[in-house]
């Protein structure tokens, strides 16, 4: 059971700020595939471009940017929390 929290910038697609994905130990890519199944192509095009996470999207597993882990292949445990946030803040 992985909890996924969404930025409000995704509200027009997800219509909620979080969801629960029923998976066992897996990868970020599998979680994203499940989210695309749930929320459709509008979700996919906002998060992914040519199969990679878009430049201005930050994906975190328990607060750690997946760019510092193994990208889409980063492991996800069934107790983990994933956050999807815009990259355009700070400085």
């Amino acid at each position: 059971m992985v909890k996924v929290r969404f930025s409000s910038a995704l509200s027009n697609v997800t219509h909620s700020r979080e969801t629960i994905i029923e998976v066992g130990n897996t990868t970020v890519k599998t979680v994203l595939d499940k989210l695309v199944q749930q929320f459709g192509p509008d979700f996919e095009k906002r998060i992914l471009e040519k199969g990679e996470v878009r430049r201005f999207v930050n994906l975190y597993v328990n607060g750690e940017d997946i760019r510092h882990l193994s990208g889409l292949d980063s492991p996800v445990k069934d107790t983990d929390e994933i956050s999807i946030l815009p990259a355009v803040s700070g400085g």
Partner: protein
Amino acid sequence: MSRVIGLKCRECGAEYPAVIQNTCYECFGPLEVNYDWDFISDHIDKKKIEAGPKSIWRYADLLPLESEKRIDLGAGFNKLHHAQRLGAVLGLDKLYILDESVNPTNSFKDRVTSVAISKAIEFNVKAVGCASTGNLAAAVGAHAAKAGLPAYIFIPATIELGKIVQMLIYGPNVIAVEGTYDDANRLASEVADSHPDWAFVNINIRPYYTEGSKTLAYETAEQLNWQVPDHIVAPMASGALLCAISRGFKELERVGFVDNADVKVSGSQPLNCSPISSAVQKNSEVIPVRNFETVAHSLAIGNPADGYYAKKTILDSGGYAATPTDTEIIEAIHLLARTEGIFTEPAGGTTIAGLKKLVESGHIQHDERVVVYVTGNGLKAQDTLLKSLQRPPVIKPMLSEFERLSAPSIEIHKQHVTPLAHS
């Protein structure tokens, strides 16, 4: 009619009204202010600017405010020093320094904050906030106090004591976060997202906030008699400052105030945290850095929000990027203080050290008119600088004791022996 049409995505061009929003709902790209340049060109007047207040607000016709109600502590319109002594050391005849250490809270962040908090007042928010490496925290604390708004400030727990003291005195809610700036910034982003009636200056109202840094370009050109320099050097953390300065010069060309905006734009980052500079040097993607340690705390951002645009701005302009070491940064602070009488923090040291490296590598030519932005005050980082100074000799109050100190001026220039902090 208004000079602001709304917000526009820098990536896909989607347009939005001028509201509290920093992200495109279509592609997650960053939003920027979309101006009506015909309106601005019809209403802007160089003489009105020259007769205006000696602050960033002399350029109000180029800023995204609708009302006249401004939170103004007097940021901006700082002296552009002709740095002849430093120039002589570096072999530059036409070196200028815009000294930002003299702003109300002693860094360039007062410019962006004055614009952002004024905009927050227009949005009638209940609170303001930011993620900060220290300088922005003080600026937000001070401007929030002046506005009478509560402030929530997220900082990495490791920043300099001087900056923490300064921000606390204004009475904001300071939240020190374990980890790096990027961790504090992520948490602040989530808090901002959960409180849509709070304005986080560098998060959900970031499109307006970054506009404040354009005034550095306007001031530079105005003090050069409405001409642009050949080359500028700016420090880089998120990269937003460098992009805004470049944009400012282009806007002056657009309204006809300068003949051209052909300015080479170069940046500098500490070697230990240099995602943008490294990308420029390798002409590669900007790769976020996770673990880093540098004396230049105010530049220690591992995942720079404007890194992509900063790299593009630099390379498109014909500029380059430097990566000085911490030792070179500290040496540059000493050099600037001893040649120009300007005491800067390690971010300014990074800029001066970067300038030196760019001259030595031939990326800056000796005959170029160069403007360097010294963005913060050395008094904020005394604990860092103590380690590079020696406690002065103590003598009895007797002339003979003074005379016994042979050539005291030479001693003073050798103050690198025993670290003051440990003596």
